[in-house]
């Protein structure tokens, strides 16, 4: 591996000259080994306030029951399931980046997979808390498991998508956790071997005695590849099953066969947007511009255009099929979405998910950090509205016009949702402090093949096609971390 050089036509994945292995360790571990700065504390305190709000709101829900929410007898499912699906969707990018991109040998995953997987795990935790809190009697949460019991045994209904969902989410969470933690072992060992005192003891326990011997690494790579192979269908199955929560019902607007692929594309779309929202800040604050380069950002933006467009096509298909079906209930559900009392939510969804991501076709927008950051947040606002539109507008005007009504969230609904964002950021900020935000070993792997310095060396050796070199140098213009004057001389 280390003997081969990558084609000069590919953009570098690590920028900067004279980067050494020691420097990679040093730079990635600096937030872990040093005291946090002011920005971290401000973020952490804000996130903690959010998490406190979550505890209060969920505590209130547990004490008084889900009557504390704005639900009524027509709209029996609203912000709770919206929040759940939103979080599960966000939780798709991590495994997608670490598994699917590993299978496709996309080396640019190496510097973003760790944070993306951490984000996945925290997003799935947020989603899981929704499942438990909207059960009404959370102390009976174990009833979703097929456990032998004294009622017969009366088993769970294995035909129900809600039971499938329980299996899917818990499998997804635990497999993602295994994948993430196994990948972390070498990096925890790096921290361990540099630490002293109590820190060394703690990291020793969590490093599982990692030594980095040949056999360990060889098995490690085999395990990563197999886990990637099984996680790829897993990640696709999770949102498929989430969509079946709706698609197997007989509610107009839910009962469509397009839901599984449409939900999966939406999940990837929102997951990558969240990765961008987080990584653009992390990159700047932690000074990781050399590892998370403009190439990484542009690649993620391209995935966002693709998945955003798939989602757009799905919206239009849904609308067409509603008309084509000839079912007046189905037709009304869609007319009502676009022009009924919730028209603003529908058009919010359309604008944020379909129209604004198209701006990324422009190279200028794709390569602008502020524009990308704002668009990534817009996408997640749009994805929240998508779930809200699907769920609430399909329910609020049901078959019986006398029971038509609107949904108004109570403060507890808002508190649970805003609070869950606080929980997410609390966990993410803690992660940045105690574990490396970039997979150190994986970045070291590509230093000799895909870094700017290795390509510079190739250019200086001078056996390359002039046109290829010119093309390469041109591709470097977009990088904010590359010094152009280094190339002017050549």
């Amino acid at each position, binding site marked *: *591996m*280390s*003997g081969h050089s990558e084609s000069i036509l590919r953009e570098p994945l690590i920028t900067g000259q004279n980067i*050494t*292995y*020691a420097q990679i*360790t040093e730079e990635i571990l600096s937030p872990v080994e040093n005291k946090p700065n002011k920005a971290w504390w401000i973020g952490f305190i804000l996130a903690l306030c959010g998490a406190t709000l979550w505890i209060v709101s969920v505590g209130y829900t547990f004490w008084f029951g889900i009557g504390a929410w704005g639900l009524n007898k027509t709209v029996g499912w609203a912000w709770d399931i919206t929040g759940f699906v939103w979080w599960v969707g966000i939780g798709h990018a991590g495994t997608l980046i670490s598994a699917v991109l590993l299978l496709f040998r996309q080396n640019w995953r190496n510097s973003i997979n760790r944070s993306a997987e951490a984000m996945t795990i925290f997003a799935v935790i947020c989603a899981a808390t929704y499942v438990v809190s909207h059960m009404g009697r959370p102390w009976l949460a174990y009833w979703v498991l*097929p456990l032998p019991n004294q009622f*017969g*045994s*009366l*088993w769970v209904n*294995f*035909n129900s998508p809600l039971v*499938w969902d329980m*299996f*899917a989410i818990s*499998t997804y969470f*635990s*497999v993602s956790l*295994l994948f993430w933690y*196994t990948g972390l072992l*070498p990096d925890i*060992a790096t921290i*361990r*071997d*540099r630490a002293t005192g109590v820190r060394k003891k703690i990291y*020793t*326990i*969590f*490093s*599982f*005695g*990692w*030594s*980095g*011997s*040949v*056999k*360990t*690494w*060889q*098995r*490690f*790579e*085999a*395990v990563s590849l*197999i*886990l990637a192979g*099984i*996680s790829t*269908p*897993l990640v696709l*199955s999770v949102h*498929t*099953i989430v969509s079946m929560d709706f698609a197997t019902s007989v509610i107009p607007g839910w009962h469509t066969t397009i839901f599984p692929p449409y939900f999966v594309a939406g999940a990837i779309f929102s997951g990558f947007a969240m990765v961008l929202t987080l990584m653009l800040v992390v990159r700047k604050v932690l000074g990781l511009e050399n590892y998370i380069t403009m190439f990484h950002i542009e690649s993620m933006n391209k995935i966002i255009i693709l998945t955003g467009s798939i989602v757009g096509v799905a919206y239009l298909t849904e609308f067409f099929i509603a008309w084509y079906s000839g079912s007046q209930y189905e037709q009304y559900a869609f007319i009502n979405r676009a022009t009924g009392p919730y028209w603003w939510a529908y058009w919010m969804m359309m604008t944020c998910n379909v129209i604004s991501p198209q701006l990324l076709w422009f190279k200028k927008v794709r390569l602008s950090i502020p524009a990308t950051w704002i668009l990534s947040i817009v996408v997640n606002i749009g994805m929240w509205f998508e779930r809200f539109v699907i769920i609430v507008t399909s329910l609020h005007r049901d078959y019986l016009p006398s029971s038509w009504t609107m949904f108004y969230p109570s403060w507890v609904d808002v508190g649970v949702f805003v609070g869950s964002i606080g929980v997410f950021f609390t966990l993410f900020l803690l992660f940045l402090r105690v574990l490396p935000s970039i997979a150190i*070993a994986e970045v*070291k*792997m590509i230093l*000799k093949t895909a870094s700017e310095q290795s390509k510079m060396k190739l250019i200086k050796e001078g056996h390359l096609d002039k046109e290829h070199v010119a093309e390469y140098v041109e591709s470097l213009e977009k990088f904010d971390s590359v010094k152009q004057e280094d190339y002017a001389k050549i």
Partner: protein
Amino acid sequence: MSNIKYILGSFGDPDEMLHGIEKLQENNIAIYDVYTPMPIHGIEAKLGVKRSRLDVAAFFFGITGTITMLTGVYLATAVDWPVNIGGKTHFALPDFIPITFELTILFCAFGLVGSYYASTHLFPGRAPRVMDLRATDDRFIIAIDAKQNTEHEKIDELLKGAGALEVKHNERKYLSYE
């Protein structure tokens, strides 16, 4: 001289280390192990580490998951408490594909990672068998058993000739982690 247990050649570059391995092997010096901060493709073949059989294990763990779910669901829905749902068959196989798939993946992943941890002796709190602290940072370490290979000076020369930045003579096998 005789107290030396292990000779460590510490390289700053993976290609130089691979070169060092070749040099040692040409001179019939057995290598105890190699410690690197990242996976280096190609050393396992040089050192004769056999192909991993974890993929075979993973397959059987996965199949166990499939069988467990299908049997469990069959017992619950068709034997123990059959429920008549619109006159449909009790064991409605298509409905159980998603959960069977999930359990297959779950068993496969846990079995695989469990076997990996067991076969490479990784578990929480295990004292790390570390010979050089920089092997997880920026050094590529070749370890040679000094008791079996007694030509210490020749080994030193070979390692340095291949580009080792440092050669260490350790009197203890592992660094103390107490």
